[in-house]
């Protein structure tokens, strides 16, 4: 997938109805992401970062314009097909980790593979590999409540990448972490990006994350105001 188009948005506009004054979250956004990118959407709160991430992640649909992810037009996908796209090709990392509290680390990471219908043996290997990537092999039997914030986010990363998706969408992944843990998980994600070729698309206004990005797209009031390729 190297140098192939993974995401393409054409005149993407998203308007949320809100009483008499609809809110325009995105206006005519035109972007292209190649496979293997390590890119971020930056901008102040309300600039449309999360909305764009949601649409790219097939959790929402554009009001007008077009979004193509891995050759699938998001605006025409049925619920079932959108779920299948997320299931097979997209991983999510959240600001608040959102681990399932009653399950162990191992089971949290295993869950996406259950949805894929993988065999138990294949799941076991994939989960152990993913936990090894994030350095948590020794915590597979722990519950989320027994983990630190940094460890929890590493479990969330393992869960996002365990199925080896083409794309990982990370919404403010370091917002709840201290500097050390932020750097640690960013390095982990960079390693995965490099080793597995997984494309990462961040939504962030954290300078620590921005410093690691190889491409920074700035959004203001729903418009792309800058799109900079960077060398790290």
């Amino acid at each position, binding site marked *: 997938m190297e140098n192939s188009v993974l995401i393409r948005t054409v005149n993407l506009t998203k308007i949320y109805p809100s009483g008499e004054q609809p809110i325009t979250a995105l206006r005519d956004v035109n972007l292209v992401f190649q496979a293997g990118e390590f890119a971020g959407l930056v901008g102040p709160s309300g600039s449309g970062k*999360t909305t764009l991430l*949601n649409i790219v*992640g097939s*959790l*929402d649909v554009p009001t007008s314009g077009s979004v193509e992810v891995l050759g699938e037009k998001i605006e025409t996908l049925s*619920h*079932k097909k*959108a*779920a*299948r*796209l*997320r*299931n*097979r090709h*997209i991983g*999510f990392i*959240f*600001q*608040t980790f*959102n681990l*399932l509290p*009653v*399950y162990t680390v191992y*089971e949290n990471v*295993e*869950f*996406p593979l*259950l*949805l894929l219908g993988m065999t138990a043996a294949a799941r076991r290997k994939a989960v152990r590999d993913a936990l090894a990537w994030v350095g948590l092999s020794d915590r597979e039997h722990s519950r989320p409540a027994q983990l630190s914030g940094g460890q929890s986010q590493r479990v969330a990363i393992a*869960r996002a990448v365990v199925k080896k998706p083409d794309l990982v969408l990370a*919404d403010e992944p370091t917002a709840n972490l201290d500097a050390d843990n932020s750097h640690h998980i960013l390095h982990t994600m960079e390693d995965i990006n490099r080793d597995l070729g997984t494309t990462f698309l961040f939504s962030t206004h954290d300078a620590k994350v921005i410093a690691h990005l190889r491409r920074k797209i700035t959004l203001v009031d729903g418009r792309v105001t800058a799109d900079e390729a960077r060398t790290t």
Partner: protein
Amino acid sequence: MIRFLFKGLLRDRSRTLLPFLTVAIGVLLTVFLECYITGAEHQIIDFNADLLTGQVKVMTKGYAAEPDSLPNDLSLDGVGTLLSELGTDFPNMAWTPRIRLGGLLDVPDEAGETKAQGTVLGTAAGILAPGNAEIRRLGLENTVVRGRLPEKRGEILIGEILADRLKLQPGGTATLIGSTMNGAMATANYTVSGIVRYGVRALDRTGLVMDLADAQAVLDMEDAAGEILGWRTNGPYERNLIEAVAARFNGRTEAGSGCDLAPVMKTLRDQSDLAALLDQFSTVRGAILTIFILAMSLVLWNAGLLGSLRRYGEIGVRLAMGEPKGGVYRAMLGEAVMVGVLGTVAGTALGLALSYYLQAHGINISGLMKNAAVMLPSHLYTRVTPVAYIIGFIPGLLSTLIGTAIAGRGIYKRSTASLFKELET
């Protein structure tokens, strides 16, 4: 996946305990009430069948038209032959003749003058025949509170209130004054062998039990009887079978003719307004099931809503990971089934345990029956039937499914992005 969900259910007790307890308690009550109603229904059937109606009763058409006025002038004649035919035609039934009689019981003083007098409503049955089942059917062994059962001709039992009023004790003598089958006056002296207490005021105030042969002798009813009662010998009362017996008998006799003396067979339901009473049992049973399903569904709906609200985060994550909304909904229903099955099994086990206990020991309702006009037993027993093992699954599973289905629709209808945004709040 099912194993995964099951683990979650077991570990997250706050999400499973309330639905589990609701189902278990609801099912417990359903099973117990089913056993209680079945027990009461069968007990009333057996009590009335043994004491009054039989499962079927053969009478003359005229007698059947006004059974409460005890028209012995319209009794069955040729009872010996009729019993023989019934035995041949219906080998799986036990048949026994009885006479019901009304009259006065006169207690003389030492000079032979009337000291006290009271009206009686008597039952004459073959209680002296060796190996007879009538003593058991009439419940005499347990109801004699003073004296003993009749052991020879000329001995009678009378109700306790009547005995107290007439100041009769076991060993005392009394004269029965009635009318013969042919309308002539009938009198005979008897010795009171025992006093009975049924716990039913109507019986204790006027009740008299005597041997059939004594009644036939005094009422001039040789080879005659007011009624012949029949019971199944190979199982309890079953409406369909009993109605088939009656239909077969009535189809072959002159029941359809206009002759008042033609024999006719009536089922238990055709007598003493029992049909209405038994139909009420069916209605109550259905109502209880419906009420429990609705009430439990409401509780489980709310429990499901609370659980779902608490699990918005989890549901959002699962949707984000690519689990289809339908999959999440089905998983919720699957969890509901698991909780429903576990709660139902627990509730059924507890309900059966309680029912088995009360099947053996019963509930004493004699205090409620002191002034009862209808004949009901003093103890009510539950009865555990195979239905009791499965009936709890109807409210147990239906209510969890309905409750979760309603609660889950909120999740199902919510747009994915809205749910996803709530992850971050």
